[in-house]
């Protein structure tokens, strides 16, 4: 079976035994979603890169202890969530809207300008959300996690996650004029 068709857990086990090709497949599957989650989560490219590196290095160093008790992506994003929480605790900062989190409007073609502007506003609105709501949206958008998985990753109750998503959607719709 080609490596691309193997599950994350199998790839991780193979990597734990020394198969670097398995890691490459695994990494390619999750790296961009994880990076975007971190980037939108902390609104800083430098911090996102630092956290991204920490997470993957931890995964590399502890690959022998990995147990497939949950989906690999859940495990990976749980690591990412904990890193983000630590980051905010350490810095004691309140997340703010970051222009760098939005795509530069000037670089886009004129025909898509309206769509790009709308996307920019969406990203800005997501960045302006409280961290808990923003994180719930990001996890849903980036990896299409279910309510239960988001609850597991963020160590919150299912209803809590639902509430966070509900509030987040209302704010985003209001910001984009979809309400």
């Amino acid at each position, binding site marked *: 079976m080609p490596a691309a068709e193997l599950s994350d857990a199998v790839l991780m086990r193979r*990597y734990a*035994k*020394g*198969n*670097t090709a398995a*890691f*490459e497949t695994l*990494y390619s599957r999750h*790296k*961009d979603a994880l*990076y*975007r989650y971190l*980037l*939108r989560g902390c609104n800083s490219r430098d911090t996102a*890169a630092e956290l*991204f*590196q920490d997470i*993957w*290095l931890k995964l*590399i*160093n502890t690959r022998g202890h990995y147990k497939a008790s949950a989906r690999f992506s859940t495990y990976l994003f749980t690591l990412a969530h904990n890193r983000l929480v630590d980051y905010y605790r350490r810095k004691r900062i309140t997340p703010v809207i970051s222009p760098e989190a939005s*795509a530069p409007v000037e670089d886009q073609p004129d025909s898509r300008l309206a*769509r*790009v502007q*709308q*996307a*920019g506003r*969406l*990203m800005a609105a*997501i960045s302006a959300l409280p961290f808990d709501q923003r994180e719930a949206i990001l996890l*849903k*958008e980036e990896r*299409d996690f*279910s*309510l239960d998985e988001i609850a597991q990753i963020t160590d919150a109750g299912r209803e809590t996650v*639902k509430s966070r*998503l*509900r509030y987040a*959607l*209302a704010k*985003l*719709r209001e910001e*984009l004029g*979809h309400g």
Partner: protein
Amino acid sequence: MGENNHASDDQALDDYLNGDDALSQLYAEQNKEKTPPELDQVIRSAATGKAGKRQKSDSSPRRSRAWFKPLAAVATVVLGLALTLDLLQDQAVVPVEKSVQYNAPAASENSVQPQIREQPAVTADAPKTRPSKASDADKASRPEAIAPGSAAESEPVVPDQVPEPAAPARREQASKSTSQAQAQQPPQPAPAPETQPSPQAPSEPVTPDQNNSAAPSARAQDRDLSERDLILPDNPPAAAQQSAAKPEPEYRESAQSWIRHIVFLADTDQTAQAVSELRGFREKHPNAAIPAELQDLERR
């Protein structure tokens, strides 16, 4: 009104979770941020390096490391034995060296036997029995005029010249070494009555006052050997040292032995005999240099 809003929010959430929401489409269209290539390189190299090391270690059979533990154990034992032997040797050698260095000048100074000199505590605690006729400066200078340290270190010492320590065991040792020294010496004539220093017999009990060799031995470590060589250039032979304790005419054969004998008399409170011997010495050696403390005696 509130219930309608809540119901609409629930419906919107369900649509969103089902992926039918416009927000999700907009997010998916525009949010195509990629991981920076340099970050990819860092992670991949880290994963490859770590995995490579792991593969390498996994590929090596455990048997190849089987020698490591016994070797480490043997090395530890050998190192421990070497250190232990080294420590034991140090303990055996260092105290003797120290005592020899510390007391060797005292041997030449007052003919202290080696058994006594090997115990600095005894010499340090010994009471100063010498009468305070000479000043401290004299005391300090007196050992300089007695004998060179080199001779004392190399030559045996006659035990019966020295007041014995209080310990009986040491007296026995002193008696033994005295008898050995006497057995090695040729028979000597009887001492002249006027030059008899009246030393204590080896077997007699020793009073604390006669332990005065201890104090000079403590002072002797600061002695300048070169100065002593200037005053008494010749190393006194062992026989001369032995004769200093006994009233034998040999001690008058050389100036050094004679001076040594006089110093011994003075140190053991036999001042009258010391003065008498000094006068006799002056008659034979009018220009010879004498120690400072004997110069005091000479003025009497």
